[in-house]
């Protein structure tokens, strides 16, 4: 007779082993919900990442170029940008989410669902990513920038052809870190009806005491974060020429 190990274990009775087999049995029933929630999470994170990249990268560049000794020193601009970034960085994400509700309603028309969650996610990630970009760009050898000046290079070209390419591995690593942070933020967005895996964990796992959903979302989140990090590390290694 062909017996599955899970069935044998089940026959053996309850205890931790029994719990695992229960969970495995339950998995196919949960899968449709889990899959849809995963898609929602990916949707939120992808869009929030794009917005963070689009806004955070120029912001990070400005933080470096407007600084003393930068390409275009502008202490006042730098102070204002620095303050904005610090305010964004100092708010806990859950507070920020609530604080920007009216902006979210204005931009998206609702405060519920994954699309609405993109707004606070982006606002939370932009200053985070901008600081990481700043750090990565500061790693670029000043001598190389000076050499570019000596060759009669325009400042915009120095940013585009020297600073960004030289910092690329660091920038990719920063982006990966931002994506990972966004995944965890997106789970928090579930708390106020943002959708995604966090939402599922709270609705099914916490409010309806269904531990299986809780475990399943934890497993999926870990797998996604691992996948993103490994892919990012691989890219950084490929690009690193130092």
């Amino acid at each position, binding site marked *: 007779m062909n017996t599955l190990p899970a069935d044998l274990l089940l026959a053996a009775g309850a205890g931790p082993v029994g719990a695992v087999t229960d969970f495995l049995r339950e998995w196919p029933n949960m899968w449709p919900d889990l899959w849809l929630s995963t898609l929602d999470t990916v949707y939120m994170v992808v869009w929030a990442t794009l917005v963070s990249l689009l806004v955070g990268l120029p912001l990070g560049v400005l933080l470096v170029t407007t600084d003393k000794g930068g390409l275009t020193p502008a202490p006042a601009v730098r102070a204002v940008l620095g303050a904005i970034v610090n305010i964004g960085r100092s708010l806990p994400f859950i507070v920020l989410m609530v604080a920007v509700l009216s902006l979210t309603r204005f931009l998206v028309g609702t405060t519920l669902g994954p699309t609405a969650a993109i707004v606070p996610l982006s606002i939370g990630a932009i200053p985070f990513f901008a600081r990481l970009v700043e750090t990565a760009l500061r790693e670029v*050898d000043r*001598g*190389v920038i*000076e*050499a*570019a*000046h*000596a*060759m*009669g*290079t*325009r400042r915009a*070209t120095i940013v585009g*052809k*020297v600073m960004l*390419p*030289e910092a*690329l591995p660091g920038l990719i690593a920063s982006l990966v870190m931002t994506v990972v942070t966004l995944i965890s933020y997106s789970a928090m967005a579930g708390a106020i009806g943002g959708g995604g895996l966090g939402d599922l964990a709270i609705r099914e796992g916490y409010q309806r005491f269904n531990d299986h959903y809780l475990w399943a979302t934890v497993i999926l989140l870990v797998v996604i974060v691992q996948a993103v990090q490994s892919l990012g590390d691989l890219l950084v290694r490929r*690009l690193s*020429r*130092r």
Partner: protein
Amino acid sequence: MIDAVGLHKVYRLKKSRVAALRGVDLRVEPGEIFGVVGQSGAGKSTLLRSVNLLERPDTGTVTVDGEELTALRGARLRAARRGIGMVHQHFALLSSRTVAGNVGFPLEVSGVGRAERRARVGELLELVGLADKARAYPSQLSGGQKQRVGIARALASRPKVLLSDEATSALDPATTDSILSLLRRLRDELGLTILLITHEMDVIKKICDSAAIMEDGAFLESGRVLDLIGTPGSLLARSLFPLPELGGSDTVVVTYPRSFDMPVMSELTRRFDVDVNILGGGVEQVAGQSVGRLGVAIRGDRRAEALSYLSTSGLLVEEVGK
């Protein structure tokens, strides 16, 4: 080719002011290799950076190849800088680009097309002996190879002037020699004018036609190396050729600054009736010429007359005992 007049530069730090240049005048003739030597903090680096205006002097003018750079700003200054190559102590190569990508960078910046760039890069790598490394990344090269890439890059836009910022200071002695002879060869083949700064006297001795000693933001001495060697009391001569520890108080070191064809020692014994005892000597190459040095003990009643005869014959005479 390079004319800098009355350069002053003061750095204002939080509490103090540091005068990096206090009235430096510099003139480098076309096709000349001019070396500025001095301790760190003497202002050499500021002087070099003033020539392509990476540092703008507070007062004074810089003229390169007939164009007054200090009068230029923005796009015109950038264009002028393309006519001045620069080599850096720590190479300053882009780690994200291949050797070919680095050498092609200045051409890319000045809008040279891909095909022309590729041809020129090939030529330049051939010139510095790195044709087989075009696709390598800087991290795969030795220090000497990196500096050759730096030199090729500096020459990409066919400059007339090359600035060298301690180009050999990060290299071992053998590599230093090969880079120095490359620089001299490039000067000979391309008619470059080279201004270099260094803290190594050896660099001056090996390739410079003219030199200046810098201290506290000013030149202590400057001129053609061979002239300075023949000048009594010259700091540069003394630094290039420290007095050897030979013999006693009657020892004299005689330096022959140029090829010298007079039987001066036998003349000495005959005319002044002194004893000349040769203690040691040698011939060194300075600025492409042979410079001889002889340590001799001179004894006799008419010793003083003998020494002044040597001086008037065009030799540099230094008394060890003094």
